[in-house]
């Protein structure tokens, strides 16, 4: 047997030291001089820590539609300014259609529209323009909608007072929200899910509501319903005939606070407008004294108070018999701003805190008892060599813990299962080697030759066998979501670590103990 190369010993020693350092923060709080860059305690997944896990889908198509609808106003404005008359102007999906009254205005109109809406592909024929939102622009709007939604959702969740929420984009149009340690799944969902679109519109006092309800809605008007109210045992929603134009919106709100409505002694939300909003509100209330304006939240009229006098202070109050929590949440979402598009929860995996702790206990138990069983079994079966394999196994566990801490991987319950499985499979490499050594001994080789032969012949088998398992683990990582990914990570780390410990570490130990005490007594294997 050749002398064991010195550099390999050093490598093992260095890995051992780094592993010990990497694992330390998981066991105790390291001293203050400890370089925190070396490793942090392992991250625990939500399934162990407890908390809320939501995947939210942003209706980006709606954001595109919304943006196209807004551009209708822009076209209307430029055409009106240049006194070009049109017969039809409407938006559908990502397309705008403009039909001019006089075909002779075509070229003038085309250059105007082109200048006003650069993001569209324009085709024209006989005074009819079809504007299609360009692909680049569409993509941009969708991307922006998701990014803005993330911002808004972050603001709302921050207001819940939780620590370290994770809010990240997932794929094209989805957002992953994780709130560790938070339990109230219902509240989190309702806070995140509401669009919080706030609009102020004037009530059309001269319009005929009954006629409009019968289907004849004047072109500049719209019918919006109020909250469902119980009247004589029947749930009734009061209809309002409103002017289509939005006078003020949530975008002009700079602050929202819970207040008590002095008139009815109820919870209310007081809004503060920003400068622009305050000016608009001032103008609106000055021009329409005696009329009503409707406050519409998420498509429902909350209240429609009469304007008694000019309101110059730049604030307004939303009432609507709120419960205290309701008012508080409303204030939060209004402060955080409106979502640019409707969102929907498409996946939820929330874990209560007690289940998380149970899972940690049970996972740790499985690891400990599984480990003890394998250690005992190996010792019993392979004696001295079993002891060597056991040292390698413990080294292996240390290495996994260190690697997980140092790459900042997240430990999940399936991840713990992966570690348990690794314990069983890690000894496989040693079993292969030891069985091979036994065979070599039976063939009549000397013990040192048998050890050499065993390690050499088993090597290619070990590599082949582990690479195929690694392939399965990598595929698992690619397709898996959250917890399953955690399993794939620990399994991969475990396979790599076990190859190192089984081949390098046991070899070094065997080389040193057996070689030094070289005598003719039989190998204890």
């Amino acid at each position: 047997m050749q002398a064991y190369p010195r550099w390999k010993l050093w490598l093992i020693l260095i890995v051992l030291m780094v592993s010990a350092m990497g694992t330390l923060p998981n066991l105790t709080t390291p001293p203050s001089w400890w370089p925190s860059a070396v490793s942090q305690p392992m991250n625990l997944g939500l399934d162990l820590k407890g908390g809320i896990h939501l995947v939210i889908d942003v209706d980006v198509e709606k954001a595109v539609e919304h943006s196209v609808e807004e551009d209708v106003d822009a076209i209307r404005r430029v055409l009106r300014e240049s006194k070009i008359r049109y017969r039809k102007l409407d938006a559908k999906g990502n397309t705008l259609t403009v039909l001019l009254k006089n075909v002779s205005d075509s070229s003038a109109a085309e250059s105007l529209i082109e200048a006003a809406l650069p993001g569209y592909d324009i085709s024209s024929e006989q005074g009819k323009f079809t504007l299609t939102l360009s692909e680049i622009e569409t993509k941009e709007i969708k991307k922006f909608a998701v990014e803005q939604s993330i911002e808004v959702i972050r603001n709302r969740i921050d207001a819940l007072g939780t620590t370290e929420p994770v809010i990240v984009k997932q794929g094209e149009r989805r957002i992953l929200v994780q709130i560790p340690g938070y339990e109230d799944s219902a509240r989190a969902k309702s806070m995140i899910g509401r669009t919080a679109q706030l609009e102020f519109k004037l009530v059309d006092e001269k319009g005929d509501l009954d006629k409009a309800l019968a289907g004849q809605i004047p072109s500049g008007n719209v019918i919006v319903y109020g909250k469902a109210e119980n009247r004589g045992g029947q749930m009734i929603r009061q209809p309002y005939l409103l002017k289509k134009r939005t006078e003020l919106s949530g975008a002009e709100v700079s602050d929202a606070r819970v207040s008590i409505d002095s008139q009815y002694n109820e919870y209310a939300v007081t809004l503060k407008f920003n400068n622009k909003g305050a000016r608009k509100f001032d103008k609106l209330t000055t021009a329409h004294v005696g009329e009503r304006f409707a406050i519409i939240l998420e498509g429902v009229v909350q209240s429609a108070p009469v304007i008694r006098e000019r309101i110059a202070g730049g604030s307004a109050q939303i009432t609507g018999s709120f419960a205290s929590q309701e008012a508080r949440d409303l204030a939060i979402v209004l402060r955080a701003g409106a979502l640019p598009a409707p969102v929907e929860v498409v996946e939820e995996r929330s874990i209560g805190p007690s289940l998380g702790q149970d899972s940690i206990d049970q996972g740790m138990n499985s690891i400990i008892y599984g480990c003890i069983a394998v250690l005992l079994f190996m010792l019993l079966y392979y004696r001295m060599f079993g002891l060597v394999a056991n040292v390698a196994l413990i080294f292996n566990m240390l290495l996994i813990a260190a690697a997980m801490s140092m790459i900042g991987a997240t430990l999940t319950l399936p991840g713990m299962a992966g570690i348990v499985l690794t314990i069983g499979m890690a000894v496989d490499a040693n079993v292969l080697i030891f069985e091979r050594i036994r065979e070599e001994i039976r063939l009549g080789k000397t013990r040192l030759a048998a050890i050499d032969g065993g390690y050499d012949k088993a090597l290619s088998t070990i590599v082949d066998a582990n690479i195929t398992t690694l392939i399965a683990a990598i595929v698992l990582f690619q397709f898996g979501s959250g917890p399953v990914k955690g399993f794939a990570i620990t399994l991969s780390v475990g396979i790599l670590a076990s190859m190192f410990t089984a081949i390098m570490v046991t070899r070094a130990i065997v080389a040193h103990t057996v070689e030094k005490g070289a005598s003719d007594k039989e190998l204890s294997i």
Partner: protein
Amino acid sequence: MQLISPDIHIDFLGKRKLALIFSALMLVLSLGLIAGKGLNFGIDFTGGTLVEAKFKQAPAVADVRKAITPIGYEQAIIQEFGAPEEILIRVQNKNATNSSKISTDILDALGAAFGEDAVEMRRVEFVGPQVGEELTQAGILAVLFAMIAILAYVTFRFKLRFAIGADAALLHDITLVVGIFALTGKEFTLPVVAAILTVIGYSLNDTIVVFDRIRENLAFNRKKKKPDSEVDVVNASLNQTLARTLMTSLTTLLVVGALFLLGGEVIHDFAFALIVGIVVGTYSSVYIASPVMLALEGRFGPSDEEMKAMEAKP
């Protein structure tokens, strides 16, 4: 200590016809169960809501059902989960617009019926219909990708008929594990798919060890003056690796057993799939992979040239 006597000579391949009939029978049975009885797909694939709640006092399932009937979930699947105080409720998605609220409604109803403080939320899972479809697709793709990648690797390291033997063993293992899930009616979830992928890795590990030995012995055999038949070589290889095969299965079963018994209810089915997979995978690496490989002898090109190519590789 030794499990297997070193001079053991089991004629594995002599009984390969018998094994083949047995395997075919099991496969047909599994496929029949999967097609006939069907799998109890979890919400990961069907979409739906799962609520796990812990009660102060063990409730009767009938009372739980009564509590959620007024809100329209009398069809829910309600079962005890690990302990009598813990109840698992599963419902399908409705065509309602906001399905993510179902869990809230159920927990509210339970709170109203049993008292707010008597019911504790342990776990809520909701999978929208769209996501369910995506997860199903991802699951099928993952199994396919794993099989193809393994086929490619084994072909590269050995040769095609070895790879086909390995993949045949894998298909056998997957079918049997899924078949057992159909038989027992255990919930088929995303973690179970993960367990199946792990079984693929494990079973292959076993098969590769045997194949490696066969390759080594074949190369050695050709140098002999009077070479043995390939069947004898394979048989000898199976016997030589038998001790290792059983040892590794045993240590792995030890730890997975710990997981099954101690890992808790959430991981239970996952561990169950692993246990079945390890047993089946050990069987298949002896009785499926090698016989199939043998049966394909000489099917794929001149074997002598391939042998030389093989020898060139480590």
